[in-house]
């Protein structure tokens, strides 16, 4: 952790993430207004003492809406990533450990899935499953699975032929013991790093889906949806697009920088 904080990217990333998590946990409580309450007289207003970040087309307080949308947006990113990383890692470890024909079959299928651009693939799944937050989360998770499986497999492969694994095999340990105690703990680093960076992608894809009307539905305060709903009013009050847009950017950047720093910290070659 100290290593992460030493690099400027790591520091910025950590600070941004700290803010994001604070907002995620406490945001809905500290919001000054009900995120759904109208204020018809102050529609599309700029920042003022009354409404710190202005109001949207219904006169709803943008600051409160942004705070309120944080949990769902961040939970979406984390949830989709956890699911994708979990499933992907299991597949990858199985392929890496089993090797031979199983490995070939699994990896060829995943290669086929990887050939599709990420966003297109997500859109395809969402179109198939129908819109909604849960469906969008599933779709992002499915899209993440092949990439994660590849990374898990390669890190398993790099560990599998190390001396301590060979020693365990020579000792006659069972296969599951070797995987659980020797291979996995040592292969976990790259997976965690990749997962952290992926959270930012998940949040951005989630926002994109919300923007396209395929994710969260009104009157939800999901940030991507907020951008989509107020896009028409951009010329009259740029704040109603800028506020949720910036929130997405800060969150994505936080995870991304933190992930970068994490990778550097895990990488022995870069630590000197």
């Amino acid at each position, binding site marked *: 952790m100290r290593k992460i904080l030493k690099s400027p990217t790591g520091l910025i990333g950590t600070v941004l993430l700290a803010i994001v998590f604070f907002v995620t946990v406490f945001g809905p409580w500290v919001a000054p207004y009900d995120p*759904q*309450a109208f204020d*018809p007289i102050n529609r599309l207003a700029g920042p003022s003492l009354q409404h710190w970040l202005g109001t949207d087309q219904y006169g709803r307080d943008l600051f409160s809406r942004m705070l309120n949308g944080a949990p769902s947006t961040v939970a979406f990113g984390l949830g989709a990533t956890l699911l994708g990383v979990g499933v992907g890692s299991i597949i990858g470890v199985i392929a890496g450990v089993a090797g031979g024909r199983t490995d070939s079959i699994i990896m060829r299928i995943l290669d086929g899935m990887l050939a599709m651009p990420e966003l297109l693939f997500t859109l395809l799944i969402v179109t198939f499953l129908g819109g909604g937050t849960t469906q969008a989360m599933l779709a992002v998770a499915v899209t993440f699975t092949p990439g994660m499986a590849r990374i898990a497999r390669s890190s398993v492969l790099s560990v599998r032929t190390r001396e301590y694994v060979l020693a365990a095999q020579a000792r006659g340990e069972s296969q599951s013991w070797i995987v659980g105690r020797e291979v996995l703990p040592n292969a976990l680093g790259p997976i965690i790093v990749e997962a952290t960076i992926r959270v930012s992608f998940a949040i951005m894809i989630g926002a994109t889906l919300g923007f396209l009307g395929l994710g969260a*539905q*009104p*009157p939800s305060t999901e940030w991507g949806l907020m951008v989509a709903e107020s896009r028409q009013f951009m*010329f*009259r009050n740029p704040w109603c697009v800028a506020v949720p847009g910036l929130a997405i950017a800060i969150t994505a950047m936080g995870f991304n920088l933190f992930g970068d720093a994490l990778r550097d910290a895990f990488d022995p070659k870069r630590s000197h």
Partner: protein
Amino acid sequence: MSHFTLTRRHVLMGMAAAGAIPGASFAQGSEPVPGGTLKVSHSTRIATLNVLSNSGPAEYPCMDMLYSGLTRMGFDNQPQPDLATEWTANDDATEFTFSLREGVTFHDGTPFTADDVVATYETILNPDVPSAARSVLTMVESVKAVDDLTVKFTLAAPFADLPYSTAHANARILSRAALEDDISKLDTTANGTGPFKLDTYDSARMVRLVKNENYYKPGQPYLDAVEMMLFPDLAAETANFLSGETDVMLTVQQADYERIASSSGIEGQQIGAGRYVCVVMRQDQEPWNDVRVRKALGMAIDRQLMVDIILEGLGRPAYDSIVAPELEFATDKPEIAYDPEGARALLAEAGYPDGLDVTLIASDRPAIRAQAAIVMQQTAAAAGFNLEIRTMPHDTYLAEEWMQGDFYIGYWGMQPTIDATYNLLLTSDASYQDTEWKNEEFDSLIQQGRSTANPEERAEIYAQAQALELEDKPYIVPFFEDVLTASRENVHEWSVAPISRFYFVEDVWMDQA
């Protein structure tokens, strides 16, 4: 600005009522000047030119320019002569005789005769050919050419509104030759009798129409050409219009209207029309079977707020009748004030003293449905209605909720007559009957209205029908949406009929530099 537009619209209406006398364009006190190319921007594709079946918002103006019908809906929402110069009906409205205009030719030079009318209507009524106008012409039993310039319609049942039906945007006259040829050719070619001829058809970019020198109104159209330019992106469309690249913006979004209309050199038009959102409350289900609950919800909605927020003030509050004020025989509807306390009391009287928890369904397209739901949720909360909004993709909505669910948001376009409006939704055998209201008295009134030719008697009948609708409140109708369009100042006489399918582009002219 809007004040000016209104007066201008009335001038236009007056003109149309006067029967569109050639050369009667007197806006700004100057004579129309021939020449010029009008560039019209639109944001939806002109996917087909097939006049029998098309329905796109940008396809209608093309059809209005390329083809003529027997009758045509004017800006005053009344049928006026087009290819038919006059028409008469027998007393019980079962036989209509149309006299046709002399000397009209199709764009390829072949003369227009009664035989083409017969061929067109036989095609429209042929169930094997997709045609959008068939639903308003189902009562037509036969169409016969009496002579070259007279056509007689015989109806299976009385129908006084036939001249409205013949003005249907998809009931335009095609030549017999075109109909007997491969019908799919109509998708990309057009041989009509309208004021403009097809020059270029590129559905992905531009449709260009040029002046028909032989149009039946002498000296018209004034324009040399009209270019319908597609801008799939709204921001690009607006930017091009504001910079002067295009002359007319076919449809303006409510959110942009103020900004566009107040730009210099641009005139916005706000045309009162009958497009509406309605709240469906299915009457064979609890709690909507109780008229008090429906009335309470009606009182719990702040209609003016909905107009202000959702329509940016570009519309009018409606008071729970689907009949637009523009329609013939429409009655004045009493205002329903926003009264959450009264609504709460009425709800308590109906047996819900602690309020009512219900789920309101709104499809995600167009956005106005969800917007209406959001505002309803906020204003009705004060009256004890606890609305949970569930939005869903439009396809799911159509498959699972529409005409099945008990509480959802509908969205409908304007119909040309009261008969068409009610027969679409509210009579027991209406095409999209989804309230289960099924009032026999109402049905018989609508039937009577159809078969009565006398306007005074019809007015009385339709007044009773509308009173029934108000009393039983099958729908909550919070507002009517205005039609919005904009043109540059050098364009004169550009307008849109309330039903937004008729444009009379032959009257449009441009200042010449």
